[in-house]
């Protein structure tokens, strides 16, 4: 059994803080969207306070993410290798849809050169560089509505921001659910969670046999 140090401390702290903020934001966001005295999930006032605080912290977390990935080796994992990408995406999807039930080995295993499987990489790029900026910008406009454009595409300024914010938030909620579930598809259901806490990816025999075959 070999251990691979893939997740440095800053990244783990970042990851779990982010995860907590995401959960808080999703719960309070849904509560505010469906607010009303007939279904008091979280009182509006409390929900707003938590949502705003968590939202601001998330902005800092995002900046932390950008800076750390710019100045450490972790950033390289986000650079996509376009050559053969469709085929690798196909392999990974096929594994999740079929291979996993037949006990096939993971088609791609994390190593120092590439930590993410192709599906992960593409998703993370979209999440971190498309959805997150849109979420943050629209969220900041909702936080400071006085700076929102009076008219945006001919519509009152806040409304398109709010719709954008909600829809992107829905996508990120879907991502979060999928991310947590796929986290259980490691060597054992808990092993990926353990790696993200301890920082080490455990290389199992299965991984080696795959490597030798290649």
């Amino acid at each position, binding site marked *: 059994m070999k251990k691979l140090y893939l997740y440095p401390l800053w990244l783990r702290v970042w990851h779990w803080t982010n995860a907590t903020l995401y959960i808080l934001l999703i719960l309070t966001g849904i509560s505010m969207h469906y607010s009303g005295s007939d279904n008091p999930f979280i009182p509006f006032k409390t929900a707003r306070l938590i949502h705003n605080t968590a939202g601001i912290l998330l902005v800092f977390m995002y900046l932390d993410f950008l800076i750390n990935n710019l100045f450490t080796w972790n950033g390289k994992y986000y650079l996509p290798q376009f050559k053969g990408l469709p085929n690798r995406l196909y392999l990974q999807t096929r594994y*999740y849809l079929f291979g996993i039930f037949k006990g096939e080995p993971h088609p791609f295993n994390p190593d120092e050169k590439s930590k993410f499987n192709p599906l992960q990489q593409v998703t993370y790029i979209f999440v971190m560089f498309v959805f997150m900026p849109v979420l943050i910008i629209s969220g900041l406009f909702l936080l400071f509505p006085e700076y929102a454009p009076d008219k945006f595409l001919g519509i009152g300024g806040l409304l398109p921001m709010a719709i954008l914010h909600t829809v992107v938030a829905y996508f990120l909620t879907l991502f979060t659910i999928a991310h947590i579930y796929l986290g259980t598809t490691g060597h054992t259901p808990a092993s990926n969670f353990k790696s993200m806490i301890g920082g080490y990816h455990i290389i199992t025999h299965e991984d080696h046999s795959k490597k030798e075959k290649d």
Partner: protein
Amino acid sequence: MRIKHKLLFLFMFLLFSEIPVIIAADHEVSNGFCLRCHGMKTLSYRDSTTNAIVSLFVDSTKFNHSNHADLNCTDCHTEEGFLQYPHSPSVKEENLYCTQCHEASEFKKFNFRQREKEFKKSVHHLKFGDKFSCFSCHDPHEFKTTFSEAIPKKMVAEDNIICLSCHDAPLQLSKLTNEPYHDLITAHQWLPKAQLHWKSVRCIECHTPATGDVYSHEILPAEKALKNCETCHTKNSILFSKLYRFRSKESRQKTGFFKTIVYNSPYVVGMTRDPFIDRLSILIFLLMLAGILAHGIGRWLATRRKLR
């Protein structure tokens, strides 16, 4: 200012006081006649009992845009005494109320009776009695209803200016009360973005009973005012029975994305929801959860088979 007034009164005094004149007899008097004097911005006097300066200025442009524009000054100020200068002492007896002239059935839609009843229960009347009247908020020479207008933003601005003309003006308040001035922002500190709220909701949304109608005049004591965010920030917002009451029924029931654009009303968290996006999002979430459940069960069965 004072010097100017004194000069003005001196001028008036010299011009008229010694020679009481009947300026107009029994024929119709044009508004121009009264406005010759009352159209002067500076025309005012100092009340001998309260020591406050009372303006006698009537803004003719605002008058001509008011609900009363078609009336002559003398239609309301019927006292003969106004026709001469100085106005005979009998004019002091004149005591006009909104409701007094507005009994007629043609005014029914404005609910004058009900407004008066509500006003009698309001903090202002209870605190100040006769010192506070309809005219404290409505200048009969300028009053214009917003009744027929269904544009919420405009209605909000026009209504709130009435309250703000006192509550945002320490000087005006000091004429009525000796209590220290509470500034509005501090009083509403619990409300985030108070200024933003005041552009989109009327003061009376929160300061009159939630069951009251769109123009309820029953201003409640501050501690009874609406503080619960969910009353507005929800699908069944009270704003639909109050501020937005003039929207057509059909549009009130559907409060989605497109309706909001059409009615150009603000985005209100919790209230402005697009039913289509809501339903679609719930559907997608359910599909996803079902997918995950199926996948998980599949994996579980697969490992069990492998173990056997």
